[in-house]
């Protein structure tokens, strides 16, 4: 594969071959099904219904733990008129919770994440340590207290934390110097699309801790290795080449999926622009197999032109 094929440029036959080439779809949500934190992208509900009609299994793989699985399901139902099952949604708080259950984890957790993420863990019966250090640090003594005075913990979890601070990361780093303390990471994007550009994502902060402590986390959000293996293990009966991964991020979706041997479809409704794809050399590990202006283009008849894509006249990439 040396180029990304735009779905629009496929002939009727090629499109048929494309749909015959996969049984399972892994699909990102923010920037693909809906605009981040906002409404459904026009056409995506029809596209998902079309995939179902064709008998494809669809599983949503999101890095967004700010909304719960239940909220995801409600949004699919309300805005897309789609009935999505709990097991069809893979999201970091849930995968981490499942992982902790599977190893029968009983210890205390230092969790750097959003309130909904923490709530999920607490509801599942896990114990979280006090956040501590919510005050302003005025002296070395305050800093020392913020880093060293809390309970010692058995696991550190890092995902999106709007108030992540140096002191929290330093406390995490100190705890992780104990080799028995588990290190878990959720969403690990280096950059996340936000507004008209990208902002620094949790991956950058996870890397700082991981480099400082000299070990890698069990990474259960995209583009984490452990999530990658978990997804492969969910469907041992389906060969990776018969899986289509749909996403809007070159690093967190396309590169992640290609490492598993999945086919990949990049949609331009999120963080990636056509120029970003055109900049990639043909053999780049983040080069998608297929491109579409929006998910709606997967539904052959009623594909609307994506209202927010400026690249709707773009064609074949080489």
């Amino acid at each position, binding site marked *: 594969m040396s180029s990304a094929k735009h779905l629009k440029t496929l002939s009727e036959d090629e499109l048929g071959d494309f749909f015959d080439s996969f049984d399972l779809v892994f699909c990102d949500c923010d920037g693909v099904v809906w605009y*981040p934190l906002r409404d459904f992208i026009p056409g995506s509900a029809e596209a998902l219904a079309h995939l179902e009609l064709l008998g494809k299994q669809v599983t949503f793989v999101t890095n967004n733990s*700010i909304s719960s699985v239940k909220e995801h399901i409600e949004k699919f139902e309300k805005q897309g008129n789609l009935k999505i099952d709990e097991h069809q949604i893979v999201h970091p708080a849930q995968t981490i919770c499942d992982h902790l259950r599977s190893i029968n984890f009983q210890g205390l957790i230092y969790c750097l994440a*959003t309130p909904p993420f923490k709530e999920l863990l607490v509801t599942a019966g896990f114990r979280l340590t006090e956040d501590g250090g919510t005050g*302003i640090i005025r002296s070395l003594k305050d800093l020392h207290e913020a880093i060293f005075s809390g309970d010692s913990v058995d696991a550190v979890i890092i995902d999106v934390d*709007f108030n992540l601070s140096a002191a929290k990361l330093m406390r995490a780093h100190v705890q992780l110097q104990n080799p028995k303390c588990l290190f878990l990471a959720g969403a690990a994007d280096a950059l996340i699309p936000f*507004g008209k550009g990208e902002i*620094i994502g949790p991956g950058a902060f996870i890397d*700082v801790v991981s480099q*400082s402590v000299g070990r890698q986390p069990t990474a259960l959000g995209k583009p984490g290795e452990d999530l990658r293996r978990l997804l492969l293990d969910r469907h041992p009966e389906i060969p990776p080449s018969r899986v289509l991964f749909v996403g809007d991020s070159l690093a967190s979706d396309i590169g992640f999926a290609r490492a598993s041997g999945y086919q990949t479809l990049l949609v331009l409704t999120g963080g990636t622009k056509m120029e970003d794809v055109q900049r990639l050399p043909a053999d780049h590990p983040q080069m998608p197999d297929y491109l579409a202006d929006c998910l709606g283009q997967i539904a052959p008849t009623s594909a609307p032109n994506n209202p927010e894509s400026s690249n709707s006249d773009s064609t074949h990439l080489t």
Partner: protein
Amino acid sequence: MAKPQHILQLSEEQRSSFVGSFDRVLSDIDGVLWTMEHNVPRAADGYAALERNGKHLTFVTNNSVRTVDQCIRRFAKIGMQVQPEQIWHPAQSIINYLRGINFQGLIYIIASPPFKAVLREAGFQLLDGPNAFIEDNFESLAKNIFDKEPVRAVIIDVDFNLSSPKMLRAHLYLRHPECLLIEGATDRLLPVAKGVNIIGPGAFASILVEASGRQDRCITLGKPGRELGHLIVEHYKIDQPSRVLMIGDMLAQDIGFGRQCGFQTLLVLSGGCTREQLLAETDPRHIPDFYADSMADVAQLLGEAPKAHV
């Protein structure tokens, strides 16, 4: 690759050649004169001996968290008279650098209050914050990080209250091609007690460097920054770098800095580097010419050295 030599294991002849081989000493402070826990015994004697031998002393620290006044008082407590102009620290070096390029713009800064005070006193216009915790949602994040002010330099040094909103905001200013990225202290790990390290400012600065793709364009005015080296060489009109001795306790910051500038280097084992770490170091850029247990060895060396060079 030459192995570093312990200064007390030099032959008589080597000693006098070493002592005569430099006129100027640049020295680190933390880990050399004192640590978080105690003063290094007889360190002051080492510097007194250097001065007695006619060496010019300058202190180059990465620590801008304390003020120069506090630093001078601490020197006085161990019996050393040090003038403010003998102390180089990142806040001052950044001022010198910005004046050198006649910088007039607005600055967004992630640093300690004393660091910011030094820049404000020098007349620079600073933005900072958010200095309080934000609400846990994307709307609040957006309000706190998107800003249309014409920031033309982002400065990052040690900030005990560094937060992700500050980092995200800094990164957004750096989307402007003319916005400079300036870092002070570079340490990735800071030793705070024996065997205890905390994440240092360099780790956070590197997030900005990588996220903004400025691997080649970050201006570093703490050790081992190239731009700091230029400032010092220019300021003291150093035309023979090999006649400068850099003394410090950190392989990457002090020895790396000294070697990059073409100075001779002396590592002291009284701070952030153990003998084992020194012997295990394989990067030639971080291997010193000489090492010593502490500045007390310098006192001993000079106490016994013949004064042939005078």
